[in-house]
């Protein structure tokens, strides 16, 4: 842990700093806490001032209504399937490519790597119109495949994983080869397990990215049965103009899996963010 020396030196302002940090942290959590309080209020009761939060009545009736009367679980399922398949395919494709770039010598290796790297500079957001046309002409609009495929060739994954695989000692590779390991087993049984922390970090970032992706599903999905969570929520909300309590319950339900996942995977998420910033 760095900076401990600095911290240990007596700092007269330390209590003030901790207090300011504490208040800031509460400010960041405030809207999320508010969302959960509102979702527990019966329809028609006040939830607008913080004082209302701590005054009964509370109910879990909204949750029951939403679970029985909306497609929120279908959206969660769609987001999960799309996120899961996107993540698995991305990890497979990027780690295989990273393995080749890290552990094989072949002509035009550097040129090909640069060609892939250049993809970092192509902003998906500016490519939605041609992408829509391409996916459409492939007949994949409004399908799972159409949601998943555009996201799987992410150069950032290749870069992060290659830099990790570079750290796997070549002596290990050579000795595995002497034992008769073919390229595929070398990749699957030797290199991939040694890079698993990086693979996990890339995987989690990919999953979160897909789970929260808004723009592409918003364009590519027409059928309500294929809505992912970020698209389903606004569509649901727009049916309610008078009240916000039921929509807030949908938002709360949508956030619970993410918050749990965050508490479980915080380390890997933080690691993934650090990689992605430093390398790209």
């Amino acid at each position, binding site marked *: 842990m*760095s900076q401990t020396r600095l911290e240990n030196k007596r700092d007269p302002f330390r209590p003030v700093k901790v207090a300011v940090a504490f208040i800031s942290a509460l400010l960041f959590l405030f809207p999320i806490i508010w969302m959960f309080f509102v979702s527990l209020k019966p329809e028609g009761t006040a939830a607008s001032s913080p004082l209302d939060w701590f005054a009964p009545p509370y109910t879990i009736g909204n949750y029951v209504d939403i679970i029985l009367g909306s497609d929120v679980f279908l959206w969660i399922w769609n987001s999960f399937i799309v996120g899961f398949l996107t993540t698995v395919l991305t990890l497979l494709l990027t780690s295989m490519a990273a393995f080749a770039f890290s552990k094989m010598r072949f002509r035009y290796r550097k040129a090909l790597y640069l060609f892939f790297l250049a993809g970092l500079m192509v902003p998906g957001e500016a490519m939605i119109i*041609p992408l829509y046309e391409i996916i459409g002409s492939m007949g994949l609009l409004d399908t799972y495949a159409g949601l998943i495929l555009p996201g799987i060739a992410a150069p950032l994954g290749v870069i992060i994983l290659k830099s990790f695989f570079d750290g796997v000692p070549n002596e290990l590779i050579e000795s595995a080869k002497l034992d008769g390991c073919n390229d595929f087993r070398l990749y699957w049984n030797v290199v991939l397990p040694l890079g698993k922390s990086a693979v996990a970090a890339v995987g989690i970032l990919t999953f979160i990215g897909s789970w929260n992706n808004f723009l592409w599903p918003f364009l590519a999905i027409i059928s309500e049965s294929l809505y992912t969570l970020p698209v389903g929520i606004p569509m649901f909300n727009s049916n309610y103009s008078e009240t916000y309590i039921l929509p*807030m319950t949908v938002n709360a339900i949508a956030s619970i899996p*993410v918050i749990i996942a965050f508490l479980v995977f915080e380390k890997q998420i933080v690691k993934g963010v650090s990689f992605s910033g430093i390398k790209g």
Partner: protein
Amino acid sequence: MKKLTWRDDLRPVPFLIAFFVAYVLFTVYPIFKGMQMSLFNWTLIEQQDFVGLAHYANLLKDPNFWEAFGNTTLFVVLSTPTMVILALVLALMANLNTKLKTFFRGSFFLPSILSVSVISFVAIFMLQPYTGVVNNILQAFGLDKEPFWLATPSLAWVSIIAVTLWWTVGFNMILYLTALQGIPDELYEAAEVDGATRQQMFWRITLPQLLPISRLIFLLQILASFKVFAQILLITDGGPGTSTRPIILYIYEMGFERYDLGYAAAMSYLLFMVLLVLSVIQLRLGGKEGRLL
């Protein structure tokens, strides 16, 4: 080193082919397809007439385009410095040596992983007049006025920037936190031996050590801010009027509401050029950490 044979060249093929195909199909091909579409009157019903550079000529005369471009630029100019400075302040707080530091880090980062749909919806109802939490709290502190956050252009911008800050600043904070923890202890120990004060240590050690990462965060943030879309669509839908409409929203409206895909593609292409230039600058100036090779 022995000379590479065709056998060596074939070895990586099974490992690269799938990525290569997907990459060419969904990253490289759209660039050329977009260029082609921008030269046609391209509608959803596949009516395609070649119009050359007419879309680009029209774009340069389109006041709506310039307004959207100006809005996006305004967002970049206002949000980038706040995003960087606030991220540093939050990282310093999360790096305080207390038992609460995990709580601080978690709280600052948590909004970043929530869906933009959730974030935007919560924001709309917190900011609404008369019954919104924000106005209620401000009035508890003595504000007489009833601010219409999302119905007044300048306040709508303040709201969008504040929401974006809340939603995404945690990402930059993590980058700063990682960098802070990477500063060698010896630097502080040496400074302490020399009798440096805490302020001196901050200005002479911490900040200079953070310079490369700051440059990188700044450039990444400009790129990210230029692509602003979802939270504006969901919170103000570009309003009031068109005063908060960014470029991507205008592209979306042209392409998917007015079905003028050719014109939208031309606009996308201009945005692509701007972002490409910014990316190249990022790769050149991003410092050792930002340079990819």
